[in-house]
């Protein structure tokens, strides 16, 4: 099949999908008796006003990490859906580092170690599924789902037992030391006057990770082997690419990126370890990666879109009595459906159209 021009594949097609999602969501809004254009206006201003942009970017940071995690695995055709559990473990890495070290070490050092612990713990959580996939052929879809449950169970046990703050009723740890945290951007950039928000330095880490993923996948031997393996296992075997090692290492990198999400949530915002902070971002990351065509630039754009939906959706809930949180979820779901799951829906149609034009124009 003739490949589509890049601008269509990564620009026009996602735009069409997004438009279709908005139209469908608009019909839902009409059905419950609201004006879809007003809803859209509130959604956009709710996501991109000076006061709310920080929130949008904060949500986007989470999805940037999990989207990159999914994309790296997908490039090697490993359908890992364990970002949820890996992010949870990343949080455990941050939590243990801070709880153990903040009484003795200076905060800067604690933060630095925590920044390493999050990816290391996230990666460790995918080691067993990776090894099972590589040496025993146990499908990584199944094993990573299992490990999501294990991660969640492990955290419940830890936070209601060994790590729980003594004398407190809720399943969470004590707060970390005052300065053992990634700084907020509104603190760092207070002089230019940006609004208060949970947005913190981890967005910079996430963007660096995106750039790193691009270099890794498209500009290194490792990335070449990764993509060759993803496209053709036989060709990888012919080329002498160590397939098993590649599977494990790729999943470790994916797990490390997913673990990075804990930097934003735990080290950046919560400053204590809580339950369920991964909140489905691991799964949303799959849609982000699909919509972003597994490319870091696309994932940045898709993360921003999904971040805007999360933040703008919350605003809808405030603004309209008829639009409940459930309906916001429906709208978000529609966009995920059209942009993520149905991302390839118009590709054949568009290919025919492009071919027809090429024929007519000679």
């Amino acid at each position: 099949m003739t490949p589509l021009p890049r601008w269509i594949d990564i620009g026009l097609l996602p735009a069409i999908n997004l438009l279709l999602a908005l139209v469908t969501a608009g019909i839902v809004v009409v059905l419950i008796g609201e004006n879809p254009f007003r809803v859209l206006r509130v959604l956009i201003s709710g996501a991109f006003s000076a006061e709310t942009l920080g929130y949008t970017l904060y949500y986007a940071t989470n999805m940037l990490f999990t989207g990159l995690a999914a994309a790296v695995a997908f490039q090697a055709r490993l359908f890992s859906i364990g970002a949820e559990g890996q992010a949870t473990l990343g949080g455990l890495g941050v939590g243990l580092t801070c709880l153990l070290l903040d009484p003795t070490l200076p905060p800067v050092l604690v933060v630095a170690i925590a920044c390493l612990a999050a990816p290391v713990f996230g990666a460790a959580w995918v080691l067993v599924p990776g090894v099972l996939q590589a040496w025993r052929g146990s499908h990584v879809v199944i094993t990573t789902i299992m490990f999501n449950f294990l991660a969640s169970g492990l955290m419940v046990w830890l936070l209601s037992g060994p790590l729980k703050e003594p004398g407190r009723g809720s399943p969470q740890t004590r707060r970390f030391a005052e300065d053992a945290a990634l700084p907020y951007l509104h603190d760092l950039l207070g002089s230019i006057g940006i609004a208060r928000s949970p947005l913190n330095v981890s967005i910079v880490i996430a963007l660096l990770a995106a750039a790193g993923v691009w270099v890794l996948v498209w500009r290194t031997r490792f990335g070449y082997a990764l993509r060759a393996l993803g496209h053709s296992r036989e060709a990888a075997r012919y080329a002498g690419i160590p397939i098993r090692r590649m599977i494990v290492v790729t999943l470790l990198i994916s797990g490390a990126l997913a673990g990075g999400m804990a930097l934003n949530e735990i080290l950046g915002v919560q400053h204590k370890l809580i339950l369920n902070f991964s909140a489905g971002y691991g799964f949303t990351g799959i849609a982000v990666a699909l919509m972003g065509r597994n490319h870091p630039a696309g994932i940045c754009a898709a993360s921003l879109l999904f971040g805007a939906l999360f933040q703008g959706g919350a605003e809808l809930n405030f603004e309209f009595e008829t639009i409940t949180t459930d309906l916001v979820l429906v709208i978000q779901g529609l966009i995920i459906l059209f942009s993520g799951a149905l991302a390839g829906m118009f590709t054949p149609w568009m290919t025919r159209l492009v071919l027809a034009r090429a024929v007519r124009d000679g």
Partner: protein
Amino acid sequence: MAVPALRLRNISKRFGTVQAARGVDLDVMPGTVHGIIGENGAGKSTLASIIFGLHTPDSGTIEIDGAPVNNLRPVDAIGHGIGMVHQHFMLVPGFSALENIVLGLEAGFRLGPGLARARVRLAGVCREHGLDIDPDATVDDLPVGVRQRVEILKALYRGARILLLDEPTGALAPHETEQLLTLLDRMRASGATVVLITHKLHEIMTVCDRVSVMRSGQLVAERDVKDTSADELATLMVGHDLPADGEEKAAVKVRTVLEVSGLGVRDAGGVRLTDVSFSLRAGEILGLAGVSGNGQSELLEVLAGMRPVSAGNVSVGGRRIDHAHPASPAEMRSLGVSHVPEDRQRQGLVLPFDIRENAVLGRLERCGPGTLVRPAVLQARAETMIGDFDIRPPVADRPAGVLSGGNQQKVVVARETAENPPILLLGQPTRGVDIATIALIHSRIIELRNRGCALLLVSADLDEIFALSDRIVTLCSGRLAGPLETRSADRSVVGMMMAGLGGGATA
């Protein structure tokens, strides 16, 4: 004059910027075998797809038995008595021959009665065309040639009177090819019309009544087979004279560069190779003939480092590879062993990768130090390959998957011969490749041999083995026979060795 069974008038079709068919006029008379010959990419398959209704022509008309048909779809084509046998079989592996033939025509909710009736009808069809087949054999258990007969029966069972065969011998062993040609002859005798699409001149000359030559989407010539020759057809196909093939053979071949001794290979599927020993000498081409599936692929993979040795050993460049000391593909490459694999699409290329990326498949570590990939280095390599092998279109950023089969193979051969390797493994280097590319690849093979390269040539094409090899060995059921000196070898002896009957023992 009789009405043509099939008449095409002014058929044109383009895909994007490629004009696959241009004003094609074709008359196929009933009860004849009509050959369509041309290089890969000449538009033969497109034409077949148009006749069968898989593609709609941009212009032109089709008549079947004198009646025009419009907007032909495959289901209509079948209704008009056209049957197509594709190059790649469309059979359900776990089903029996009968179940495959009936598929889609089960006649009713309950399978049993329909199958019983189908069995009777199938026996009739077999009798009419002189075909013999066990309807209850599972198709996986059948040899490729018989599977193809199932495909032909599928078409005949659906009432086909005009049979389109698209490159039917691509996957067949020599004796299966002969059987197919005999079958086509019998079918003609029983009144069927056959359109045989191929790029093999031998098949045209053996079985066809009339032949049309396609080049760049046009029918450039049409001949009665009795009035033409293979040489004339070859020239017509390519559009210019071909360089003479198989020049004088160099004589220096004394130094053994690769030695296989007592090699055995077993895997989950059973024993693949048993006690295989031979030596490969610098400056010679060792031809390995055999019906595919007799251990050739496994032997190539062992020598390429892709498959472990179970018994015996392989010595190359002072390194001894055995069960306890396996070699990786990277190590074999560093020992000077290059490998053109049998399956270019699955192994030799990563189809979505562009030519630049495919230019370094398996050789990335040789493209400069460090872990970073240098786009400029890849670009330069790709451009050299494109220039040396006349790869078309000459665009380095085109995915390999959109190239024609011949150009894909050029990419693989160009990559594997770029560094003038001391040892080259060739797996079916010209299978499914057009004549001009075959000539190019053959001349490159001979050039390497004359430079002192040691080549192992695995081919199912006996003509190719005889044209190029200095010595010939065969594999049958994983056992090696030979070698024979090509000069003193006889086709029938090699054929017997391939069938596991008798074995030459002159070393």
